[in-house]
């Protein structure tokens, strides 16, 4: 019995270790194939990777750029992971993020004269509520009518992006080169951690939300219910859990976290709502959640990886003239290999060891 215990605990460790190893292998293969593409397009690999690394971790400025990209990805990744853990595929993070951003901008502008301790939390809360409402809609539709959240959230994304643009142009627009709202005042701005630097304290808010998410799923009855619905809806029903309520709640929480992503961007980085500001954080969030296998702690690392690739890619383009699109290819391949673990198992089989069929 004791021996068996030891074996199992070893196996368990192995399982999580092998997950990490698989993810690392996926990243490495993606980088190697990325290098092949870089060569194929006639660029110098060494220069490319030098700038990729230098632009993401090479200096304090680079690091700040990486963290700037990482912050919204943590929120977006968490939002998607919350959905996945509850059995829902929230593709609507992008839309929820837009409404969160606009709501924070509008409320932030109204609260500009209040002291920071009041104005800042309320402005954040506005973003969370707006995102939560936008998440409520597909959750409600799924629970009450069975409309699949993948379809509804994709369509709601369009409505959100165009809807926020419409609202901005018609009600909140100020003069400027693009359609945007007025600048937010200091009291609703998320400050930098380092004076003069660009490391927004948004990352701290992101980590707090990450810890809360971890707590929700590991230490609360609500998290238990959400995961039961996500893992086995039949058992949830059997255990007396109200699946409809959980579906709606999961989408509201996921949407609220997504909304915060928008809030933090406009309250820190941009300082105002700008139409079409997101380069697709909501969608990259899906990639982050998949790479992290919905583990909140791993979301941090996955977001950091994608953030670094974004920041490094920009520097690669800027200093070496290598198109940033190649970074998109590398990101895509990371996901492809992570999502297809069988592929890596196949590789390990080709390289020698014959593994048994899994039962």
């Amino acid at each position, binding site marked *: 019995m004791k021996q068996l215990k030891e074996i199992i605990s070893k196996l368990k460790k192995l399982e999580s270790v092998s997950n990490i190893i698989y993810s690392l292998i996926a990243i490495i293969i993606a980088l190697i194939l990325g290098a092949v593409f870089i060569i194929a397009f006639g660029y110098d690999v060494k220069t490319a990777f030098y700038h990729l690394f230098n632009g993401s971790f090479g200096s304090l400025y680079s690091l700040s750029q990486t963290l700037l990209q990482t912050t919204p990805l943590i929120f977006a990744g968490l939002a998607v992971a919350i959905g996945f853990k509850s059995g829902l595929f929230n593709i609507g993070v992008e839309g929820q993020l837009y409404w969160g951003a606009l709501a924070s901008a509008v409320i932030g502008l109204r609260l500009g004269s209040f002291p920071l301790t009041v104005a800042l939390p309320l402005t954040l809360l506005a973003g969370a509520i707006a995102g939560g409402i936008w998440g409520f809609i597909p959750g409600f539709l799924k629970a009450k009518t069975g409309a699949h959240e993948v379809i509804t959230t994709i369509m709601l994304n369009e409505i959100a992006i165009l809807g926020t643009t419409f609202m901005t142009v018609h009600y909140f627009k100020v003069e400027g080169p693009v359609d945007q709202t007025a600048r937010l005042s200091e009291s609703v701005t998320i400050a930098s951690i380092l004076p003069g630097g660009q490391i927004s304290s948004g990352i701290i808010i992101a980590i707090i939300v990450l810890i809360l998410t971890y707590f929700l799923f590991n230490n609360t009855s609500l998290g238990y219910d959400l995961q039961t619905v996500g893992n086995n809806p039949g*058992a949830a029903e059997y255990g007396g859990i109200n699946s409809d309520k959980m579906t709606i709640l999961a989408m509201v929480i996921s949407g609220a976290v997504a909304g915060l992503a928008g809030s933090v961007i406009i309250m820190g980085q941009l300082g105002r709502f700008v139409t079409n500001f997101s380069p697709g954080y909501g969608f990259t969030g899906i990639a982050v959640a998949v790479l992290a296998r919905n583990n909140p702690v791993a979301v941090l690392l996955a977001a950091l990886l994608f953030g670094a690739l974004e920041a490094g890619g920009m520097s690669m383009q800027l200093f070496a003239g290598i198109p940033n699109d190649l970074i998109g290819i590398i990101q895509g391949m990371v996901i492809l290999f992570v999502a297809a673990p069988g592929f890596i198992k196949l590789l390990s089989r080709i390289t020698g060891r014959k593994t048994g069929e899994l039962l």
Partner: protein
Amino acid sequence: MNAVELKGITKKFGDVIANDNIDFSVKKGEIHCLLGENGAGKSTLMKILFGLYSQNQGQIKINGQEINSLTPSEAIKYGLGMIHQHFMLVDRLSVTENVIAGREIVRKGLIDLKTAEKRIKELSKKYNLKVDPRARIENISVGEQQRVEILKALYREAEILILDEPTAVLTPQETEELFQIMEDLKSDGKTIIFITHKLKETMKISDRVTVLRDGKEVDTVKTSGTSAEELARLMVGRDVVLRVDKDEKEPGKDLLEIRDLSLNSSYGCGLKDIDLTVKKGEILGIAGVEGNGQHELEETLMGLLKPDAGEIYFKGQKVTTFTTDQRRQQGIAHIPSDRLKRGLVSQFNLDWNFILGSEWKEPFAKKGILKKKNIKDYGEKLIKEFDIRTPGLQIKAGQLSGGNQQKAIIARELSSTPDLILAAQPTRGVDVGAIEYIHNLLLEMRAKGKAILLISAELDELRSLSDRILVIYEGQFIAEKKDDFDEQELGLLMAGKKDGERNETA
């Protein structure tokens, strides 16, 4: 001569050894039982023989010919045929189309169904495999579907047939018919390997028996020279009491009452005017062949399906419109018939599975925050109390064996201090040792004055546990039996034949 000879077969899945150096040989023209508990490695061994898995070590000989590596299509060429436990049939296609799939006779680019049909009719006649070649699979009974599977193998000229737990889905009568078919096949010179964990059937049909336990071959014996008790001992590794003793007991007050319950079901047979009463300290058995409304009854009673008419009273209170949660709070425990779909969250660790349905209640949670220490302590207590074999609490429920999963569900449900226990197929897919244990637990609950509604497809189980038995057929109770549970008669009733004489076709 040996039709099949396996020598030193070893098969590992990761670090788990499913087959450990197994020798297994089957003589030509015999019915050979491969007996063992769930997880003993029977199916794995047969899947190796049929080329679905490749062994890590060992040798395969078919009709004396040594074979190194095998694929299922090669296995078929060597004259093997496998009838899987879960049928591999296409519902929307006809019997003929299913039988010939992959072996179509093509003439001028078209499938020659006529010739195929003729051939199938010949085979049906020869081995008494009654089935209409033109019927669609979705319209024929489970027993007939099984015959189609056998026809499929015979159509491919199989000489060695492997039947994987073929009786699990059959009524006693259908089992009889299957055994007759097996005898016919045998007298025609076919070799049959019969995988099972049922002792009675082994004793009845086989010529020889090979017993597996924990992936190892324990023994191969002649059936005529052994007994059910000895086989049970070989299977489990200790003495097993095959019969449980039940005390005489006067049941108490009515606890559960169901009146005129009806349910229209779009996929199953639904329920029609169900009436029943369960008293305290009583086990009421519901006998029936699967798919005759038991599942609907189970789910309606728990509030998982909404009835169209009728009322349910529990402790004198009308609970028809109660939610599942409310019913549980009132003291109804539920051992579900589908443990993977309903009973467990296989991704959750064992301790979390123990609190399903109580995750908001003290001592497991306070104000919505889980009390991990209490959950852990409770889990450890249940593991000890219910003898759940697991390396620990932090094991995913999906990693446990079927028997231990079932024990875990039963532990959770019986520990919630229920007044009524709805036990649906409580020993399905559970090995002999655990069956004994579960039966004793249910009797213990009866002795404590709990009411038990036992839904089962196992006649032996119903007969040894129940105080009364209701027979359900096509969503209706067609008979009630007290004390005198004649196996033959119950079997006929389950097949819808009232009083064993009139042939009622609905």
